[in-house]
């Protein structure tokens, strides 16, 4: 636990991991410990956010992130509602700003936004009184994913600093990788990036990561391996010739897992493409912590909602 009981987040919004400092990240992770405990009780509900209204504005399809936020909100007793493009006026041509202004007029306390365009949460943050939580914006950031990943690493490894974390897959188009990279660097881990050169963005060297074009090199000696989802539509953009060849060159097989440390843990932000980026038997193997990530996601999101609504480290109702 952070020593000062009244330590709070310095930001009104969670737009990304990049603006946070290491203490704020630790505060969120520590706070999530308490909320994980709540999720294990028979009655999984606390009155912490009673009377607060939270809007889940999901303008891009998402099942797990949205469910995770909704469960977190319910466990904190917040009143929440979910919007998605098919059921809202967005499909009628309303701009994002108008949608936001309309939501704001109903005086919510927080808006959770998922959007296909990078920077959409920043646009909202410019005009909204509510706290904005980025639940994934284009290829930019997915901060709560990185937080739940870090929480899981800490849970399994006891630390983040000093870990060697390999992230393999479509780096160019991944918001998960950016958030993870910022977080892991801030907490002192070594990040190794692996993937086909056609899916590695320029300038990675300036972000202080090791870049390995072959998965074997990336996995060597790592404590954590994180496999990223391969989107089938990337194939049509010519980044690789076939899913079959992708699996042959980059798929995580048992043989390749053995290149990592013996006690390696395997993570995946989901949803998985079995047989594309990950072999079936690996996904279900003993080192897989993929379902722990999902469980921890709820606790981490409860912590984020609690802290953004003004909560402090030491004030948590037991």
């Amino acid at each position, binding site marked *: 636990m952070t020593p000062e009981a009244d330590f709070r987040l310095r930001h009104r919004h969670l737009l990304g991991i990049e603006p946070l400092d290491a203490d704020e990240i630790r505060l969120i992770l520590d706070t999530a410990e308490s909320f994980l405990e709540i999720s294990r009780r028979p009655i999984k509900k606390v009155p912490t956010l009673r009377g607060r209204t939270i809007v889940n504005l999901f303008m891009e399809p998402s099942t797990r992130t949205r469910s995770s936020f909704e469960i977190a909100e319910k466990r904190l007793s917040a009143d929440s509602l979910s919007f998605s493009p098919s059921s809202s006026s967005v499909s009628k041509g309303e*701009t994002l700003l108008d949608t936001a202004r309309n939501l704001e007029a109903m005086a919510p306390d927080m808006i959770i936004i998922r959007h296909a365009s*990078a920077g959409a949460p*920043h646009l909202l943050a410019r005009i909204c009184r509510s706290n904005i939580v980025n639940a994934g914006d284009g290829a930019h950031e997915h901060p709560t994913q990185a937080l739940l990943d870090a929480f899981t690493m800490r849970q399994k490894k006891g630390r983040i600093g000093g870990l060697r974390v390999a992230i393999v897959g479509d780096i160019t188009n991944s918001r998960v990788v950016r958030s993870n990279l910022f977080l892991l660097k801030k907490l002192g881990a070594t990040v190794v990036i692996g993937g086909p050169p056609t899916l590695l963005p320029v*300038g990675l060297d300036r972000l202080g990561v090791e870049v390995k074009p072959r998965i074997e090199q990336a996995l060597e000696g790592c404590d954590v391996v994180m496999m990223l989802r391969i989107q089938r539509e990337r194939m049509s953009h010519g980044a690789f010739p076939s899913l079959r060849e992708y699996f042959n060159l980059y798929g995580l097989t048992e043989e390749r897992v053995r290149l990592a440390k013996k006690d390696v843990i395997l993570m995946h932000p989901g949803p998985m493409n079995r047989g594309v980026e990950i072999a079936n038997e690996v996904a279900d193997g003993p080192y897989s912590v993929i379902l722990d990530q999902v469980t921890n996601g709820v606790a981490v999101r409860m912590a984020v909602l609690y802290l953004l609504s003004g909560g402090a480290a030491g004030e948590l109702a037991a």
Partner: protein
Amino acid sequence: MNWLLRGGRVVDPAGDLDRVQDVLIRDGKIARVAPGIPVDNVPVLDLAGKVVAPGFIDMHVHLREPGREDEETMETGGAAAAAGGFTSIAVMPNTDPWNDSQSVTEYIVSQARQRSVVNVFPIGCVSKQGKGEELAEIGDMVKSGIVAVSDDGHPVASSHLMRMVLEYTKIFDIPVIDHCEDRSLSEGGVMHEGYHATVLGLKGVPAASEEIQVARDLILAEMTGGRIHIAHLSARGSLELVRRARARGVRVTAEATPHHFSLTDAAVSESAYDTNTKMNPPLREEADRRAILAGLADGTLDAIASDHAPHNAIEKSVEFDHAPFGILGLETSVSISLDRLVGGGVLNLKRLVALYTTGPAGILGLKRGTLAPGAAADVTVLDLDRNVEVDVSSFRSRSRIAPYHGLKLSGAPILTLVGGRIVFDGRA
């Protein structure tokens, strides 16, 4: 229209002049430039301490008329130009309809004559409707007043068409202006491909997208002997290509914009996705910016052009991915240039004036950009000591989109005369 402009520092690169002189204007033309001209019954403008230059020319402007009068019109664009120190503007053909025929050219010319306070020189299309397929009727448009051809905004993708237009325009001795972009490399891109695009998760446009098309255009210009003009050059590789081609004798000219020599892609990060930092070609890296500064100083670049691109504020206030490319430039171009180029010690005042006068006039074949006796009395007066703070709400333009709001600059245009008529007076 008669005036005596008294006691200003006359900077006229066409006449290789930089000296305190009087300028006498009679009947809308320059009558005499000399020290201590004695006159009676001619009104006097005392310009001691100010710079008197030939009227500035912005050779890359989007007026949006006809078609998008909600974004800019002859009146508002003309007033913005005058306030920015410009006496002439060349306007791009990507209006609605495109300026691809004599009738549209004639419409623009006649509307401009009635409603714009500055001279408007239309640029015609390379191809019908800017589609990049068949040549537009360039001869007809030349008869009605176009000074160049371009499918601006729609880069000429077909090498064959580019060859044809470079050959065909030799009949009229007008330049072909190309927005150089290999769309197969830039498709979906919204900012420069580099470190900042990677951090922001935005799709990048590589410098190679511009450089490849510049290289192709130069090869075709060399082969045909036609005249190619590279619009808004943004990448250092393109500059090097132009420099080497010119040394070989290729008939190439090039322009750069104030945003490309004053800002970099870091502005997209620093502004947290402000769509006022989104333009095409995109803001590039510091090394590119420095290369452009060097190109402006050493003559590889012939003109500063603003690429003034008005957009409706509502269309620009959206997700970065969805916002249209482009920002305003007419009302900030000269102050940014004075502050960053002259104030910044990159080049001297005479060179700067050349980039706004003899440079573009030479490219477009205009008998302007000079204070020689007999020339039209287009005059731009500058105050190098005027401190300005950019306030987008004060723009004459119909649009408000610029990444410079609140920027403090030293040096500004204070008086603009077109054909001897005062079209802007910002003297304190």
